[in-house]
């Protein structure tokens, strides 16, 4: 098995609060890796440190064999890590298509001179970006909404658009922050098929999720965070029976999660 991402002793404090305490984990190429834990366990903080939105207070990430830059989000994207957000953060005034095209920014190069002179390279690149964006909208199932301004999309479609935008950055690792939040059963089932398809197409998935059923059914391995510490990391069936995990979720005395 090839390691894609390794977190080594990541720490993050906010004032007196330790959000992440010496967290280490390993994500293998091609797997769906779940990150679960009670509210406030530090899952989203780990995402934010990983993607460069926050500077870690300690530790490092090794991605594809070399260290990730910290505090430089666009460079992390350039290395091949893309994310979605727990509370949807689309470019609300841009159309669905433009959102996806904006996601492709890091993989394109056209500059102001190429644009002003409308060089052949620029026109060709823009054409390919548009084409690719339509493909991705189709991939997540909202091609018919390409021209819609993204703030007008339904909640479920906005979530799917976020995934398309993230995929437009051509990631090796796709980090999804509670993608099923607020979805009904049908939408969750569709999402599950989509994540399966994404993994099948060669993108490793890191998934934060509250829906334990989804996590247990979808993930190859799962890590559990509690109060900023990793308390378990294994295949779902083992994690599910781990007393520490049950304790963290249910406060002890119970036998099974979910």
């Amino acid at each position: 098995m090839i390691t894609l991402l390794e977190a080594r002793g990541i720490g993050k404090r906010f004032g007196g609060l330790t959000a992440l305490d010496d967290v280490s984990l390993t994500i293998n190429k091609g797997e769906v890796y779940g990150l679960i834990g009670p509210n406030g366990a530090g899952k989203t903080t780990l995402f934010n440190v990983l993607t460069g939105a926050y500077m870690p207070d300690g530790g490092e990430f090794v991605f594809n064999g070399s260290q990730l830059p910290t505090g430089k989000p666009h460079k992390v994207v350039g290395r091949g890590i893309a994310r979605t957000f727990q509370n949807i953060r689309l470019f609300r005034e841009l159309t669905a298509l433009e959102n996806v095209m904006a996601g492709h920014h890091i993989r394109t190069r056209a500059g102001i001179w190429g644009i002003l002179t409308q060089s052949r390279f620029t026109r060709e690149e823009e054409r390919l970006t548009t084409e690719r964006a339509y493909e991705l909208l189709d991939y997540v199932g909202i091609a018919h909404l390409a021209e819609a301004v993204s703030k007008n999309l339904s909640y479920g479609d906005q979530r799917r658009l976020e995934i398309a935008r993230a995929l437009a950055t051509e990631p090796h690792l796709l980090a999804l922050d509670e993608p099923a939040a607020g979805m009904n059963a049908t939408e969750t089932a569709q999402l599950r098929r989509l994540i399966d398809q994404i993994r099948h197409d060669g993108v490793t998935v890191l998934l934060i999720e509250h829906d334990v059923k989804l996590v247990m059914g979808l993930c190859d391995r799962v890590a559990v965070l509690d109060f900023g510490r990793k308390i378990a990391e294994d295949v779902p069936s083992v994690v599910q029976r781990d007393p520490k995990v049950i304790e963290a979720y249910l406060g002890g005395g119970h036998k099974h999660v979910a």
Partner: protein
Amino acid sequence: METLLQQLINGLTIGSVYALVALGYTMVYGILGLINFAHGDLVMVGALSALQTMMFLMGVAPGMSPIAMLTLALLVAMPVCMMLGFTMERLAYRRLRNAPRLAPLITAIGMSFLLQTIAMILWGRSYHTFPQLISTTPLQPIAGVFITPVQIAILITSALIMVALILLVTRTRVGRAMRATAENHKVASLMGVDTNAVIAMTFVVGAALAAVAGVMFASNYGIAHYGMGFMPGLKAFTAAVLGGIGNLGGAMLGGITLGLVESFGAGYIEDLSFGFLNSSYQDIFAFIILGLVLIFRPTGLLGERVSDRA
């Protein structure tokens, strides 16, 4: 009727210049929420560096055609302003990006003083005659209306620039990144946009427009001096607020509207005030408008595009 048409032409001309400057204000505001008060002074730097280039060219190549000379002057003035815009952002505003809003605003005013003072040292305090390479002698009047070649040049050039800018912002990779960054810096960078580069680019594009506007302004009035950017700067700011600051279409609409109001105001102010005021008071219209807009419609004609910043 003839006065009416005449004021219309004059108003459109000066309004286009205001619009070009207003676009710079509004682009920077849209992306940073900053009123760059030094933007008006880039108009002055554009005009004076073009003047300097023309003087030099007249010395070394007296027989050069006016169009070639004007083009070369623009090719110097634009990069000079673009570099200034870039430097201002890099050295002053970037450090203050997360500071309380008052800090960059006051810094911008300081930048404005700095640019004026440097210009005063370099070019002196006197008014310079700006070579009118495109004629300001009116053509044969059409229906009693006089239009000068320089007015025609200003109208055509600014229309082309505005169309190009709209296409740049709405149809291209750079424009998409600008709009994404304007909406949310943090998310844009998490989606792979180098937001620092995009913000720098916004300043550079705005500065290039200011340089062109400076050459137009000086060509139209035939005069340039170190303080010439102040008034057009304030008026362009008014135009941007009038149209709805942060909104490109608004800046264009606001600029043209302000130019027209001013021009008609100047034409009729004597009648309106029963001979008490004359056309040299035309500046009051811009500021009456600014006051009225801020009181009754602070979001401007087309409404400020209010975006949520994370």
